[in-house]
């Protein structure tokens, strides 16, 4: 999902003056499903993804610049299908069995126009997969005032997805052709606190409508695996507050972010992210980071259902389950000049683990499909 980001530091916004190009390769690997959580001895390998990211930007004239982002990723592996009870009534996972092979291409173009105390951004793009076509557009702006110590930002965005699931002949419960849309709006307020600290708080609202179920998942209801079925609208809200503080004596900067989320599927979540950017030498920077996440369950979620619900909505998708997750990462960045060009290299690793025990609330039955993963990235930036 490409993102037209929130505004930058107040007063630091200006058009870029150099052409630059970035490339990043990432390798994502989910942990194999534990045999004690599997319903059968079939394929327990989870997803692995290889992602190529390309970004380029260039000045257009004194007050404008443009950028383009391209992502190409290939995915393979088995995915959770539905959940059944074992002999003791504990949930165990039925996997899709066959390995899924797919690829996705995402393109996003952005143009920015700069004024004396303001900036406007316009973006448009698309995402293309074998079974999903998505187009999106957005408009955002920010205005600096109070001697550039305060910035007010806002924006709107729209996305439309067309979904045509594969293998509908073999799996007749899958819909043949569906669509969904999302409209997003955000407001942000940013304040420089001191010469070394700044804070930003933002509210984001998104309205989703259309086919919001997962066409590839089923759910066990009264002993029968039926199609995943969710409401056809979803209103989401997120409150994100971010703080940056540079410690001169240490030569490092603290990043602290907190996000609260809620929606009308009765889900709430809390996310806390901390990172420390430490200069080691003039050309090397190390960034250790930590993230904690906890979410409650959707109102219509259950690993399985003994009885029919009056609204007909059911899902055993682990992404709608109650759980918590922790991740830790380390990133190293090096910069050097060669052949009149400026190079920047990045090597990063992240480990993410999730489970019912990490949730803020008590989880009675943990979903067996919860995911843990490794993420390794290698990047190169060239400034001309």
């Amino acid at each position, binding site marked *: 999902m490409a993102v037209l980001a929130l505004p930058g530091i107040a007063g630091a916004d200006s058009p870029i003056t150099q052409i630059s190009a970035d490339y990043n390769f990432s390798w994502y690997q989910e942990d194999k499903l534990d045999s004690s959580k599997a319903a059968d001895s079939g394929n327990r390998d989870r997803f692995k993804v290889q992602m190529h990211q390309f970004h380029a930007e260039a000045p257009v004239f004194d007050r404008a610049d443009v950028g383009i982002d391209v992502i190409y990723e290939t995915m393979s592996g088995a995915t959770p299908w539905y959940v059944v009870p074992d002999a003791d009534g504990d949930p165990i996972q039925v996997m899709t069995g066959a390995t899924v092979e797919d690829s996705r291409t995402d393109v996003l173009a952005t143009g920015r126009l700069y004024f004396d105390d303001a900036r406007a951004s316009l973006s448009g793009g698309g995402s293309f997969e074998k079974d999903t076509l998505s187009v999106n557009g957005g408009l955002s702006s920010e205005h600096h005032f109070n001697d550039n110590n305060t910035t007010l930002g806002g924006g709107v965005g729209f996305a439309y997805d067309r979904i045509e699931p594969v293998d509908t002949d073999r799996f007749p419960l899958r819909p043949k052709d569906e669509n969904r849309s999302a409209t997003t709006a955000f407001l942000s307020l940013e304040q420089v606190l001191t010469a*070394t600290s700044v804070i*930003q708080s933002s509210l984001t609202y998104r309205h989703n409508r259309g086919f919001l179920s997962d066409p590839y998942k089923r759910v066990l209801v009264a002993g029968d695996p039926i199609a995943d079925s969710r409401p056809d609208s979803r209103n989401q809200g997120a409150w994100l507050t971010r703080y940056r503080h540079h410690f001169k004596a240490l030569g490092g900067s603290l990043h602290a972010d907190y996000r609260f989320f809620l929606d009308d599927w009765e889900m709430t979540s809390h996310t806390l992210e901390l990172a420390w950017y430490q200069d080691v030498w003039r050309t090397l920077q190390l960034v250790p980071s930590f993230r904690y996440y906890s979410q409650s369950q959707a109102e219509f979620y259950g690993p399985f259902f003994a009885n029919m619900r009056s609204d007909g909505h059911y899902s055993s998708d682990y992404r709608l389950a109650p759980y918590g997750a922790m991740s830790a990462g380390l990133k190293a960045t090096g910069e050097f000049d060669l052949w009149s060009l400026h190079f920047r290299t990045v090597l990063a690793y992240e480990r993410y683990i999730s489970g019912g025990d990490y949730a803020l609330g008590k989880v009675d039955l943990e979903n067996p499909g919860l995911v843990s993963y490794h993420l390794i990235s290698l990047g190169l930036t060239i400034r001309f």
Partner: protein
Amino acid sequence: MTTPVTTPVTTPKTTAVRIAATLVALITLLASVGCASVKPWERGYLGRTDMAWNPDPLETTRKEHVQFSKEASLGGGGIGGGGCGCN
């Protein structure tokens, strides 16, 4: 067979009211400190790359894509972009 639940500490409606109240308090705080001005020549540290909200935009895009695919929450980092079959 039962539907498991987390033990809610608060209801979503109560939480929303608390969030709104906290936000108003935060905006009031920001407005009050807004009177203390940092001059342009004092902004050297604020202009550092590691003081940006997203020092590495490709990393931000990658992480938000993974989290969007594996978690139920909205990113909150902007207006979002294209969807995908991953969620």
